[in-house]
């Protein structure tokens, strides 16, 4: 792609400076929105653009905003910058490289739902990033882009950051809200949904960093422009975080519907010399693994529908490439260990289930396992599936189930090395 719409710092390296961002028309869109548009018009523009949540679930953004009741006040906007999925590192790059476009999107979103206060929740490890974001927010305040009576209207807005402290679960939106409220990051029972009872019990919109960064160009260039990019059901551009066994890992901004081949080989340079792609995890450690036997599968377009059609999920588009040196039994021991560590402990299937999966997968990977451990691991995974309070528990079984189903011999090789020879 010649021009970037999200990773604009790749075209304009100094765009993280307020004067540079403004010289390119930055915050003109926010001003236009506040001074000339009704909140409902902003919402409709985003609805018509086809933008879907970039955090992983892919829920239509405008529709999400429209769920906030106009009978309950105040409204809050919360940005999810917890970015903790193994394989995901896109929000960090937006916040570092192109922070004002994100902040402008957050401001526009706040106006659309008439929130006067918005929090950006950042994972604790983004410590330095949070401090630089605080400075940029202070610059916006000094420039009259935040505060009371913005642009001479009655609208006022304040932005704050809130740091997490190392908990994957806080990327789950209700756990994130609990965390801002100063509690353990454990998911809430739903309903009520955050749109009705969110932060401090009030109607709340929660959007991912990348989603909000998209809002700015949509309001600048219009819904029709945005819809012209990507596919019919998956509109727009997406940042693909490419990692694992590729020569050039990194973030690549591409239209939704770009093929795996283009990303992995065109951008990433493919796996190392003499190696071939054995599998793909398109949504980080939470993915259903795609087995690559026939290279034709690499021509699958990366949009929400097409990836679902081959039995996986696009999620947050954190594409982990696995080459033919990777043993899937080892891989599963890695992903399961992650989920076991990150389980919040609130619901039993996840708390106990990830513990047992970790024990079994660890035993298999270390070569101390027995053949029946593979079947037992699969049974435990099947018993967790569909029974958890939040997606974390469900995510923990994806690699286990799809790994064993498609690569059983990898597991058997680890537990009975002699019999497989």
């Amino acid at each position, binding site marked *: 792609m010649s021009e970037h719409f999200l990773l604009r710092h790749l075209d304009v390296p100094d765009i993280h400076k307020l004067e540079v961002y403004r010289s390119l028309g930055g915050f003109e869109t926010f001003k236009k929105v506040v001074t000339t548009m009704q909140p409902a018009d902003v919402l409709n523009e985003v609805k018509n653009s086809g933008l879907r949540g970039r955090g992983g679930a892919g829920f239509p953004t405008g529709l999400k905003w429209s769920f906030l009741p106009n009978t309950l006040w105040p409204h809050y906007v919360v940005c999810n910058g917890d970015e903790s999925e193994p*394989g995901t590192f896109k929000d960090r790059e937006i916040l570092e490289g192109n922070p004002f476009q994100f902040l402008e999107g957050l401001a526009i979103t706040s106006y659309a739902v008439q929130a006067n206060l918005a929090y950006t929740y950042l994972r604790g*490890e983004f410590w330095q990033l949070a401090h630089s974001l605080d400075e940029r927010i202070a610059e916006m305040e000094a420039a009259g882009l935040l505060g009371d009576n913005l642009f001479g209207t009655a609208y006022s807005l304040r932005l704050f950051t809130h740091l997490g402290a190392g*908990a*994957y679960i806080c990327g789950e939106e209700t756990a994130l809200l609990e965390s801002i409220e*100063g509690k*353990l990051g454990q998911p809430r029972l739903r309903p009520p949904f955050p749109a009705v009872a969110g932060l401090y019990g009030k109607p709340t919109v929660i959007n991912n960093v990348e989603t909000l960064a998209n809002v700015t160009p949509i309001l600048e260039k219009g819904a029709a422009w945005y819809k012209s990019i990507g596919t019919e059901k998956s509109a727009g551009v997406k940042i693909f*975080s490419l*990692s694992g066994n590729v020569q050039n890992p990194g973030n690549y901004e591409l239209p939704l519907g770009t093929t795996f081949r283009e990303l992995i080989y065109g951008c990433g340079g493919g796996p190392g010399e003499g190696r071939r792609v054995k599998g793909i995890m398109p949504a980080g450690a939470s993915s259903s693994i795609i087995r690559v036997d026939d290279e034709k599968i690499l021509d699958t377009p990366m949009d929400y529908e097409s990836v679902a059609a081959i039995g996986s999920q696009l999620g947050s588009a954190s594409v982990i490439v696995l080459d033919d040196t990777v043993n899937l039994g080892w891989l599963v021991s890695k992903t399961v260990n992650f989920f076991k560590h990150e389980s919040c402990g609130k619901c039993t299937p996840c708390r106990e289930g990830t513990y047992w999966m970790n024990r079994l997968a660890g035993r298999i990977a270390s070569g101390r396992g027995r053949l029946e451990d593979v079947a037992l691991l699969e049974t435990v995974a099947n018993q967790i599936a569909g029974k958890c309070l939040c997606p974390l528990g469900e995510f923990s079984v994806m690699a286990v189930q799809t790994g064993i189903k498609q690569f059983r011999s990898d597991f058997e090789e680890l537990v009975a090395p002699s019999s497989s020879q």
Partner: protein
Amino acid sequence: MNQLLQHYPAEVNGILSKYPPQFKRSAVMPLLYMAQRKEGYVARQALADIAEICEISSTEVSSIVGFYSLFYDEPAGRYRIQVCTDLPCALRGADKYLHELCARLGIKEGETTPDGLFTVEAVKCLAACHRAPMFQVQGDGDIIYYENQTVELTLAWMDEVRAKLKAGKEAA
């Protein structure tokens, strides 16, 4: 006497002002970061101080420390070197890197160097999968990323830190 309030009144009030006045509890995590800035862990007195500011029990504050991995209730090395060993990093050699680093330092994962300066730990994903092996350093009230690491680079960085600390001591 509330020592946090006494020593850092402006900072405590600055944190509280970010949240609606009736939700003081929201300040608990920022206050914990503040409390462990100097010693690298949250002392018992600080738990009580924070509880008083947030109008909750110190048991509740303690449970927050236990839940979140970046808060500590025990001292360790001045700098915690936290190496991500999750899947994407492991595919780029993070396990081998951690193993060799520990071997060169003569410690096991989770242990501290004899001079008390560096604790080396394996941690979960840090959103830097494309620049592995990598680690973050938690210490002196800061968290800093070091990416695209080799054992040699890391050891050289540790020598630098030691030299800087020594120079600082001599100057004082």
